[in-house]
Structures are given as C-alpha cells and as structure tokens.
C-alpha cells in the first residue's frame, strides 16, 4: 500500500512538472559564457556595415531564446549559449563589448523577415544554411556543423548509431512533421516510430522505457541531455549535415567576409574553443573544428 502511494505521488509530481513545460531546474543553472576581449583599434572603410555599426555603438543580433546551450534567455534577461558567444565574438571584432549588444528573439519562422526588414543586423540562431534561404539572405560561416543524432538512456550500449536501430528493434521518438522525423524513416519501421508534438514528451517516453531512442539535431538533444540530470546520453554519431551560418542582409559580402575573418581569428586565438567549452561543451566536451567556410556571395 505504501509503495503504491509513493508511486501516485511520483506520478502527480511528474504530471505537475510536465504541465509546467518541464521548465523546472534548468533555469537556475545559468551558463556563464565568456568575456570576449574587445578589439579597441578596429578600423573599417567608411560606408561599410562594420563602420556603421562601430559608429552607432550598438549592434542588434537575432538569436533563439528557447534553445538551451545555444541561445537561451534565462531569468536574468541575458541570453546564454554558443550562438550568443558567436554574436559576442563578432561584436568584439567591431570594437563593441557584450553590453552594447541588443538581443532580439529570432524564432525559426521569422528569421528571414527580421533580416530583410532590417530589424536586426545579423542572426545567429541555429540557422541551417540552405539554398532556399540563400535566395532571400546571405550567410557567413558556417561556424558550426550540427547534425541529426540519437539520444539514449545513459546505460544503453546497444544503440551505437542509426544502423543499429533496426537490428535491436528499438522504438524511436521524434516530433510530428519535423525533418528529423522524415530522415529517420529510412532506419526504422513505421510501427517503431513514435511521434509527439514536442521533444520534452519524447524525453519522458525515453525515461519511462516506452521508447529506446530520441532523434533530432544534436544541439536540441544536448539541451535534453543537460535537463535529464545524467539519465540520458548522446550517441554522438551525426548522420546528417546541418551547417549553421550567420544570417546577414542579402549581398552584404563585406560584412560576410568580416564575420568569416573574425571566426577564423577566434579559432586561431582559442576564443572559439573557450566559447564552446563554456556553453555546449558542457554536454559535448570535444571542441568541434571550425568548418570550412563558404565563399561570401
């Protein structure tokens, strides 16, 4: 009888947690980020975006406010994460310290509009470079190459990559209608694919053993791993390529080249690695190499 009432208690607590969008403890544990050294002698040709930004003394950067480890706005109002770090690095290259940055929320649906309408100067928001988007804006970078990955229970050694899903008969969870959900269909049978509307429900299904793996881009999974308090781990074998770029106004090649140069310098002087270590590196410790940069156009 006692054990049963404990179970009901656990259930009630977990439902309460689920109802509060599983926010819970993640907000108290702030990622600290790094102090990026500002270049005080930055000089730019008059008329360029860089010169304008330096002169105005502020820069508006679009980022996600709900993407743990990349761009997450905590209770103190300042977004934290690797995307935010990249924004700080670019601003520092312009001679602007972090407190001169105005952060603007850039959800996936409206990123192109924000840039086109000039409401932000650039967007760093887990923004995958693709041809469809290139028709409307230009990309600097990529500064990071994400990819679809699998999240499994911390003690699961049988799932080592997408190929191991079918032989082990593993059930996989993803989000209805998402690109990762479509991609994974070549690795699992339809009856073993479970779909929810949000990834937190998938994490819950993994916790209770209803599914054996959750799949989407590794950066989203990293956030879930962090929230899972040691229950989950990444398989860390990405099987698609999602190069993340910095979105700027279409055709602003000078600004694009400047961002690329700043990224290259940040990798050389160790700031890139430092920024990774302070944010996403807490879940995925190995610093990724800066990807081959695309030509600016």
């Amino acid at each position, binding site marked *: 009888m006692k054990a049963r009432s404990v179970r009901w208690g656990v259930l009630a607590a977990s439902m309460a947690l689920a109802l509060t969008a599983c926010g819970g403890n993640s907000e108290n544990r702030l990622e600290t980020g790094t102090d990026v050294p500002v270049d005080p002698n930055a000089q730019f040709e008059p008329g360029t975006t860089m010169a304008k930004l330096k002169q105005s003394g502020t820069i508006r950067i679009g980022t996600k406010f709900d993407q743990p480890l990349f761009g997450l706005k905590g209770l103190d109002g300042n977004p934290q994460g690797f995307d935010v770090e990249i924004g700080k690095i670019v601003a520092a290259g312009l001679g602007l310290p972090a407190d001169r940055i105005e952060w603007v929320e850039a959800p996936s649906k409206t990123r192109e509009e924000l840039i086109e309408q000039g409401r932000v100067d650039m967007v760093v928001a887990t923004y995958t470079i693709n041809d469809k988007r290139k028709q409307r804006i230009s990309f600097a970078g990529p500064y990071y190459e994400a990819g679809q990955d699998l999240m499994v229970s911390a003690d699961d050694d049988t799932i080592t990559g997408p190929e191991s899903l079918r032989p082990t008969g593993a059930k996989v969870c993803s989000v*209805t209608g998402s690109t990762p959900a479509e991609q994974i269909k070549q690795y699992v049978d339809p009856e073993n694919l479970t779909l929810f509307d949000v990834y937190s429900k998938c994490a819950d299904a993994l916790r*209770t053993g209803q599914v054996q793996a959750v799949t989407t881009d590794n950066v989203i999974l990293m956030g879930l791993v962090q929230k899972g308090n040691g229950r989950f781990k990444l398989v860390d074998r990405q099987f698609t390529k999602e190069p993340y770029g910095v979105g700027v106004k279409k055709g602003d090649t000078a600004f694009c080249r400047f961002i690329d140069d700043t990224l290259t310098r940040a990798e050389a002087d160790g700031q890139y690695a430092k920024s990774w270590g302070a944010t996403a590196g807490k879940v995925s410790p190995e610093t990724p190499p800066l990807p081959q940069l695309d030509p600016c156009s």
Partner: protein
Amino acid sequence: MHVITDNLPLYLSGLLRTLQICLYAGLIALVLGTVIAAFRVAPLPPLRATGTSWVTVFRNCPLTVVLFFMAFGLPELGLNGSYFWFGTIGLALYTSAFVCEAIRSGINAVPPGQAEAARAIGLGFGQVLSLVVLPQAIRTVVPPLGNVFIAMIKNSAIVGAFGVGGDLFAVGDTLTSARGEAVLPVLIGVVLGYLVITIPAGLLLGALERKVAIAR
C-alpha cells in the same frame, strides 16, 4: 490541389490509420458503454455507483487529459505498452461515457410496462435487460449514438498527438512542416479525408435507423 494528388498514398495511409483507431475505439466504446449503462440501471447500489462515477469521470474530463494519463501516467506506474493501444483505449474510455448516456436515455424510453411484464413472467434482471429492454432501447437511440460516433471520429485527430502518429491529421503536419507544403491545400486534403469517413458513416446510420426504428 497538386499537394493532395501528389501525396495520395500518404493521405491513404493516414486515412487507414484513422479508420483503425476509430474501428477499435468504437467497438470497445460500444461494448463498454452498454455494460456501464446496465450498471446504471442495475438494482445493486454498488453497481449503480460504479456506473455513475465512470460517466462522471470520463464525461467531464477533457479528452487530452485522459490521453495524457494513458500515454504518460500508465508508463509512470510501470505499465508499458504500445501508444496505439494507449491512445485507442483512451478514446474508447472517453467515448464510452457518452455511449452509456445515449443508451440509458433509450432504456428510459422503453415503457415501464415492458420490464414489469418481463419480471411478471419470472425473468431475472439480466434477462429483462438483455432480452426485453436493451433490444428496444438500442433501436431507439441510433441517431444519438451516431452523433457520439461521428464526434469520436473527429476526436481521433487528438489521439495522433499522443504518440500514435501516422493518422490523417498527422499527415497534414508532415506535409506542412517537413516538406514545406502550403498549409491551406494540405488541410483541405485532411478535411476531405475526414469527410470520406464521416459522411458514409452518417448515411449508414441513417439507413440503419430506418431499418430498425420502432413506432411507438
């Protein structure tokens, strides 16, 4: 309208899934609802209390909450199973409360003299109900039962959001989000899919009503 014709196999698979959910949930709800209705008119107080609480709980609880409990509460209690059955049974439990009330209204419509006469010739409660009252009751409640089942078919769209996946409504999500199709034509396709199920169901129920109706 290219979206619909180009993705016909996907729409058909969604239609099939929705039909599966509705067929199983409808059968379970019909049986369960009839049993609960029998409980509600039973002479034993504990049975009546069970029936009343069943209807009170499932009729007043939002379907999403019932489904949430099935999909996330049961695994928490150590009961693992397929999301298809969690969702289908959740929908069946919810619908059974409405089936029960429809049937109970039919039972109330049967003239008391019928049951009294049956009892007078020595039939027990079970026999009175199953041989005399229920056959008459169900025939009079075909239209309200039809409403309940058509509502259930539409409610099945919610089941897809609880891990079942692949149903007609989820097909719409797949086409708009992952494949970047325009929302409006995709949704028109989804609506047509539901109409393909509900309109024939309505016609069938109409025919059934004409066939079994009893004049009183």
